[in-house]
C-alpha cells in the first residue's frame, strides 16, 4: 500500500466565543473536533456536509491558513520525510505552502480587482523568489494557456472576465508553483451550470497532467460523486462516514449520509416519488454546545433514547468494511438506503 501524502490525526480547531465589555472568553465553537483523515497521492478526496459543519475550516487548517488548536497534520514530502504542519511556525511553513495550494470558492471576491492577471498569477512566483522579469511572464503565459485562457489577456483586470474565466485564473494562481496537494474549497458552487462542467473537466485534466492530489470540499453531492474517488461526510466538526464514492452512495452506513443523499433533488421528474425520503429537521445544533452522546441524535430518525444520547459515549469512526468507516452506534442494526442507479 502506498503511503498517504497527508495524514491528519485528531485535529481540532476551536474558535473562542467572546462576550461582554472586556471580551472574556465564554466558550468555544468546536469547528473541527477531532478529525482523522488520510489522503493518498493522486486521489481526489471529497469532503461534504451542510454549512457550518466545519468542512471549510478543516480545509483551511490543512493549508495552514488557520492554525489548528491541537492535533497533527502529517505531510509526506517528495523525499519521504513526514513533517507535522500543525506544529510549524510561519517561517518554517513557507516551503510547504508552495506544495499545498488552495482554490477558493468565490471567483468574484478572491481576485484583487486592482491587479492584472499577470500580477495575480505571477505573484506567488515573485513572492517565493522563483522567477522575475521575462521568465515570470513566460511561466504566467504558459499557465494561463494550460487553464484555457489566452495569454494575450495578461494585462487585463479581473472585472473584464466572467465567473468561469475568473475561476480559471484562480486555478492558474494555485497551480503556478507546481503544488502536489490542492485544496479546492467549493470551486464550482458560484458558477453557472453550463460553465461548471467545463471547470470540473479542467480540474480533472490538470490532475492527470500534473499528478495532483485533491481535497475537494463541496456541499453538492452530485458534483462530488462525479469527481471524487473517496468521500468523507462531516457533521458538526466530526467525520461521520468515510468510504469509496461508489460504496458510500450505494450503501451508506450512517443515517446522516442517507438523509443527505435522499435530499438531493434528482434531475428526472420520473424519479419524483421513487426511493426512500428522509427529511431532517432544520436546526443544526449549536457547535459551541454540541448535544451529548452522538452529535447527530437530535435530528436522527433512528435515534434511540438511552443509547444514542448518553453523555461521554458518543460513537467513534470505526471500520465496518474494506475502506468503509462510519461513526454510528447503531450502524449494525440499520439498513439504510443509498442512491439507486438512475433510469437512463
Amino acid at each position, binding site marked *: 500500500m502506498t503511503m498517504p501524502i497527508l495524514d491528519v490525526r485528531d485535529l481540532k480547531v476551536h474558535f473562542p466565543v467572546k462576550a461582554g465589555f472586556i471580551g472574556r472568553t465564554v466558550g468555544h465553537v468546536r469547528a473541527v473536533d477531532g478529525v482523522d483523515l488520510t489522503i493518498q497521492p493522486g486521489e481526489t478526496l471529497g469532503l461534504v456536509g451542510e454549512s457550518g459543519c466545519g468542512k471549510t475550516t478543516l480545509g483551511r487548517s490543512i493549508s495552514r491558513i488557520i492554525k489548528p488548536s491541537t492535533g497533527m497534520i502529517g505531510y509526506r514530502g517528495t523525499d519521504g520525510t513526514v513533517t507535522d504542519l500543525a506544529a510549524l511556525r510561519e517561517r518554517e511553513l513557507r516551503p510547504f505552502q508552495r506544495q499545498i495550494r488552495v482554490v477558493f470558492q468565490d471567483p468574484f471576491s478572491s481576485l484583487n480587482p486592482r491587479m492584472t492577471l499577470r500580477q495575480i498569477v505571477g505573484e506567488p512566483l515573485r513572492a517565493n523568489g522563483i522567477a522575475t522579469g521575462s521568465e515570470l511572464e513566460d511561466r504566467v503565459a504558459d499557465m494561463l494557456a494550460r487553464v484555457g485562457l489566452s495569454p494575450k489577456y495578461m494585462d487585463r483586470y479581473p472585472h473584464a472576465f466572467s465567473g468561469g474565466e475568473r475561476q480559471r485564473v484562480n486555478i492558474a494562481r494555485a497551480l503556478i508553483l507546481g503544488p502536489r496537494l490542492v485544496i479546492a474549497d467549493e470551486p464550482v458552487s458560484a458558477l*453557472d451550470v453550463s*460553465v461548471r462542467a*467545463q471547470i470540473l473537466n479542467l480540474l480533472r485534466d490538470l490532475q492527470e497532467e500534473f499528478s495532483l492530489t485533491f481535497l475537494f470540499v463541496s456541499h453538492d453531492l452530485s458534483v462530488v*460523486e462525479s469527481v471524487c474517488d473517496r468521500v468523507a461526510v462531516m457533521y458538526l466538526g466530526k467525520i461521520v462516514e468515510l468510504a469509496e464514492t461508489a460504496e458510500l452512495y450505494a450503501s451508506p452506513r450512517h443515517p446522516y449520509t442517507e438523509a443527505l443523499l435522499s435530499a438531493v*433533488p434528482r*434531475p428526472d421528474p420520473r424519479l419524483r416519488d421513487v426511493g426512500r425520503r428522509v427529511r431532517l429537521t432544520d*436546526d443544526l445544533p449549536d457547535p459551541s454546545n454540541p448535544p451529548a452522546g452522538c452529535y447527530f441524535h437530535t435530528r436522527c430518525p433512528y435515534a434511540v433514547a438511552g443509547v444514542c444520547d448518553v453523555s461521554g459515549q458518543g460513537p467513534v469512526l470505526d471500520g465496518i468494511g474494506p475502506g468503509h468507516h462510519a461513526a454510528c452506534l447503531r450502524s449494525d442494526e440499520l439498513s439504510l438506503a443509498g*442512491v439507486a442507479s438512475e433510469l437512463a
Partner: protein
Amino acid sequence: MRPVQASDALLEIDGLTTHFFTREGTVRAVDGVSLTVPAGKTVCVVGESGCGKSVTARSVLGLVDEPGRVVAGEIWWRRDGQAPVDLARYGPKSEEMRRVRGGEISMVFQEPMASLSPMYTVGAQLVEAIRLHMPLDREQARERAADLLRRVGIPRPEERLDAYSFQLSGGMCQRVMIAIALAAGPALLIADEPTTALDVTTQARIIDLIHELQAETGMSVLFITHDLGVVAEIADEVVVMYLGTVVERGGVDEIFHDPKHPYTRALLGSIPRMGAGTGQRLATIRGNVPHPSDRPSGCPFHPRCGDAVAGLCDRSDPPDVRVGPGRTARCVLHENADLIGDDGQLGAEEVQR
C-alpha cells in the same frame, strides 16, 4: 387591446420586454417573453444567471428597480370570476398594483436573511402584512400570524412571533417569508430562487412545504430557479430562458425526456447525475454566458450551439415554433415541425439529426 383567449390561465404574459437604461447603453434584460401560468399549477422558469428570469418575475409585480422599465408587453392577470386586467398598465406605485402585490400575487425572495428586517420581530412583520390586506384588528391579526407560522411548519409559533430574524436559521427565515407571502391567501405565489441559499436538507423540506401548501390552497406557483434538479422535483410546466428570451416551453416530462432546443439538451447533458458513478466526464457547453448588454445577433445561443447553421442562426431571429400541444421551441431546427401537426413525431427525428 387583444381579447384574452378563453383559457384557464391565471397569469398570461405576452411579449414582455423589460429594458435597463444604463449609462453604457440599453440592456435588454427581458426581450419578448411569453408564458402562461394555469390555475393550480407550478410553472418553473429555469435559466442561468443573466437570462432574465428574475427580472421577468419582478416585472409582474412592478418591482423592477431603476433604471429598468417595462417597455412593452402585456401581463394579463385573471382574478377569480372577474375580467382580466393588464398589470403592465398599472404604475409600480399605483393603488391597484399595491392591492395585487402581496394580496393576490405574493413573492418569496432568494435571501431569506436579507429579506426580513432585523429591526422588527417576525410577528410585527407578519401582522403588518396581514393588516395591509385584511380588515383585522391587532389581536386577530396576531392570532392569524401564529396560525400561519404553524402552517409553514414552525414549532411553538406563539414564542417565535417575538423572535428577530437573526435568531432564526436560514430555513426558519424562509418559512417565515413564506408565511408572510401566504398572509392574504394569494392566488399566485412567485418564488424567486427560494432555496438557493439553503442547504440540501433544508431545501428538500422547503420544496415539500411549497408542495403541501399548494395542494391545500390550490394556489399557482411561478418558481424561478437555476437548478434543474429542483425543477424536476416541483414543476408541472417548464419555461427555459436564455439571454432574455424563452427558448423552450413544455411539460416537465417532455422537457427532461424529449428536449427540443439545443440549449435545453446541452444544459441537461452538463449536469452530473447521481448514481452514474465516479469519473464521468461531463458534456460541456463551449464558451461563457455573454453579458446581456452584448448579446449576439440572431439567435442568442448560436455562438455556443453545436447545431448552429452559419449564415442563418447568426443573422435572423429564430422563429418560435410550436412543436407539440403546449410546447414551443425557439429554434430554426424545428421550423417545419408545425406543418406536421401536434403529434410531435417530426420532433423526434429532428433530435437525431
